[in-house]
């Protein structure tokens, strides 16, 4: 790995940067410096100010105080356009794609005006440009029809197009499978060797330790220090992030005394991009759903919840499971924790209280009127039980961190009476380390209550630690099952890679 000396020019420097949103101090007097050829990782829990910092560096947000210098030139007025001119490229966590426009048009809009070709040559030019970066996506389709992984890679490629001096990557691997992560890393390392300064923000600490030269840690908007990656360990980083040493722990499995009883049974289920799938999940069991992104795991999970319409047989607790609508599935006791919390399960502008009780209002009311005190007591109790960190139960959920938002959506299966199966799609995506454990614990608590859980995750470590059993999907079917002593991160990764090899061998 290149280790740029102190003589390399500083391509991005933030000095004394502070920013407050209302009463919340998001950043306090932060200093970050990135040199040419360096990969400078930025880590911190959700809500620690990383995104705010990137927003300020990229000109999207104006700082309350402090200076930003890009390529040695002080930025005058904050605007993304100016930052781009000065040589800053950024891949946003939430992307900068125009989903309705074609891939070619999106690529076209991402390069500086001077480099844009004539419109009639746009398609060919875009295809050639993407090929240069080894990104094989069709250019004439709308970006909205690409997979999440493809969108994420496209976002990174777009940020490289203007040949930036400094490149900011905000969680660039959240939607990527192992192979795509490698592809991305190759791109990133290539840039850093070409003397581009890279600021790399990620939740995935092993990834960060593997790639970064220096690591800066943020906690509650304050920088905890900048460290050489060579001498850093995951534990030490976590300690800086949360302010106390914390074991990356998982709750005990405690499955000893369990009487095997199949709760969810699926036979020959087929649907959009998956099938046939046969699977049994027992009462009190957590089954992991692994696989490279885009192999039907999400569709399978959502089909069980009645969001897609599958064919085949699914039964729950002995009776046939109606997968024709979400309501039918819900009535049968099947609850889906969506991977897209804000869009699909929560009402972002409504309070924690409303979001928690919205499915169980009937049980909190009397002759049609809500009993506020009882509602408040219920929400308070759930907040304590799931350790939801909030200013008050009236706080809008959109102002909570990702982890606390997930906990709010988790309150619902706790409050509903007849939950038999929980389907969790990426339950800890965008969730910080401390909150992860709370979520694992909550999921395990439901298992111990006799619920069957099916958890889809792209993090093999999480699956290995949390689940009793992991099934691996490839091309829409289950190709491997891992349980007992075999169950480990390495074994899961191998199975995913192995199934991918199988897929390639089948000559798709």
């Amino acid at each position: 790995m290149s280790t740029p000396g102190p003589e390399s020019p500083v391509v991005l420097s933030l000095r004394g940067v502070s920013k407050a949103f209302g009463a919340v101090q998001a950043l306090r007097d932060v200093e970050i410096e990135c040199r040419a050829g360096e990969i400078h990782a930025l880590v911190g829990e959700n809500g620690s100010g990383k995104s705010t910092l990137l927003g300020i560096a990229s000109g999207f947000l104006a700082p309350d105080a402090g200076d930003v210098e890009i390529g040695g030139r002080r930025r005058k007025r904050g605007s993304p356009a100016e930052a781009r001119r000065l040589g800053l490229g950024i891949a946003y966590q939430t992307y900068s794609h125009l989903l309705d426009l074609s891939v070619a048009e999106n690529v076209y809009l991402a390069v500086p005006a001077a480099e844009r070709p004539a419109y009639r040559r746009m398609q060919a030019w875009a295809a050639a440009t993407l090929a240069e970066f080894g990104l094989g996506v069709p250019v004439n389709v709308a970006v909205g029809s690409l997979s999440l992984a493809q969108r994420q890679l496209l976002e990174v490629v777009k940020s490289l197009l203007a040949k930036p001096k400094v490149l900011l990557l905000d969680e660039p691997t959240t939607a990527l499978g192992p192979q795509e992560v490698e592809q991305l890393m190759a791109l990133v390392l290539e840039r850093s060797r070409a003397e581009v300064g890279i600021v790399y923000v990620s939740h995935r600490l092993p990834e960060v330790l593997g790639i970064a030269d220096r690591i800066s840690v943020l906690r509650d908007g304050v920088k905890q220090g900048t460290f050489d990656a060579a001498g850093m360990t995951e534990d030490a980083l976590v300690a800086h992030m949360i302010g106390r040493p914390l074991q990356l722990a998982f709750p005990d499995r405690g499955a000893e005394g369990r009487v095997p009883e199949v709760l969810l049974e699926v036979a020959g289920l087929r649907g959009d991009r998956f099938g046939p799938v046969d699977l049994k999940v027992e009462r009190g069991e957590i089954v992991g759903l692994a696989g490279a992104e885009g192999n039907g795991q999400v569709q399978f999970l959502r089909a069980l919840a009645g969001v897609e319409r599958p064919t085949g047989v699914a039964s729950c607790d002995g009776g046939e499971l109606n997968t024709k609508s979400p309501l039918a599935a819900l009535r049968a006791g099947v609850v889906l924790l969506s991977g897209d919390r804000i869009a699909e399960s929560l009402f972002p502008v409504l309070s924690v209280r409303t979001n928690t009780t919205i499915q169980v209002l009937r049980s909190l009311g009397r002759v049609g009127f809500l009993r506020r005190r009882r509602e408040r007591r219920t929400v308070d109790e759930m907040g304590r039980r799931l350790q939801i960190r909030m200013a008050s139960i009236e706080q809008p959920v959109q102002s909570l961190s990702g982890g606390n938002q997930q906990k709010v959506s988790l309150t619902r299966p706790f409050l509903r009476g007849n939950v038999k199966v929980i389907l969790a799609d990426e339950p800890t995506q965008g969730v910080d380390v401390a909150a992860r454990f709370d979520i694992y614990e909550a999921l395990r608590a439901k298992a111990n209550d006799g619920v069957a859980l099916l958890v889809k995750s792209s993090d093999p470590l999480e699956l290995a630690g949390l689940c009793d059993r992991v099934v691996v999907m490839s091309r829409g079917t289950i190709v491997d099952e891992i349980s007992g002593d075999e169950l480990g991160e390495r074994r899961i990764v191998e199975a995913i890679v192995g199934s991918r090899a199988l897929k390639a061998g089948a000559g798709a």
Partner: protein
Amino acid sequence: MRFRGWIPLVLLGALILAVSGYTAVRQDAFLTQYNINNLLLATMPLALVAIGQTSAMLVGGFDVSVAALITMCVVTASFTLKPDESTLSLFIGSLAILGVGLATGIFNASLIRLLRLPSIIATLGTLSILTGASLLLRDHPEGTINSDVIDALTTTRFGFIPLAFIGVVLLVVLADLWLYRTRTGISVRAVGLDETSSRRLGMSTGLIVFGAFVVCSVMASVAGFYSAAQVQIGSPIVGGYALTSIAAAVLGGASLAGGRGSFVGTLLAALFLSLIENVLPLFQQPTEYAQMTIGLLILLALVIYQAPELVARLRSGWRGVGRLQTGEGEASAG
């Protein structure tokens, strides 16, 4: 995607041909130079204001003040385009009308961009102000408008087709080429589709939205000329174009959410709406039917425009809450 944009144009073209063909066969009075000329002239104000409305809708807004602005322009014309004026003062008078449009546009755009008011509320306010101002200037229809100007606008023609209509056709074709084939055109659509992403890509989103609303008002003031030519007097009650212009833009393929639309489609829609109004009296049908027919056709057209999504929905079953586009592997299918 590409295919979708063409649906409105093809459908409107087919409808116009079908209605014209049917009428031409049954009514001799329809396919006369006189009637076609009249039809095209009658289309002018709606076409112009709807083109402006399309511009506002492309960036994700509405302008409901256009109706009042047209009235205001007609009233202004009754002061600045009086009979027996010199050519120079008529020229200045015309500029004054465009100036009213420009000022209104800047006012609206400032409310929307600088003060961040929702466009529908901001322009509703402007609508009320302009309506009041028009009534203040002319409390009843009064003040004849210069007939030379009216003649210049309406009787200049190429064959039997008004020159102005040919101009509008050229304008919309050029505008669509600009919208779909140039960097700035794509930028305008991009802002309408997703302002955050557009800003992240370094576009001047504020300027683009501002410009779109100014264009909308200026087009409405141009429409004011043709309205003035129709009523020929300073009437404070011209109105009626706010919802029709939105209807024409939507029929032409514009999306209420912004980012989608076509100027050619808008012109075809305006022509189609005028055609219905032109044709029904020929069949001795009361004009009330025109209103109802137009309403039904708008609903029908919108259902057809949604057809690709409806078909997809029927195929894949219940997607009531399937808002999340997981979309994996779809590219390989395309």
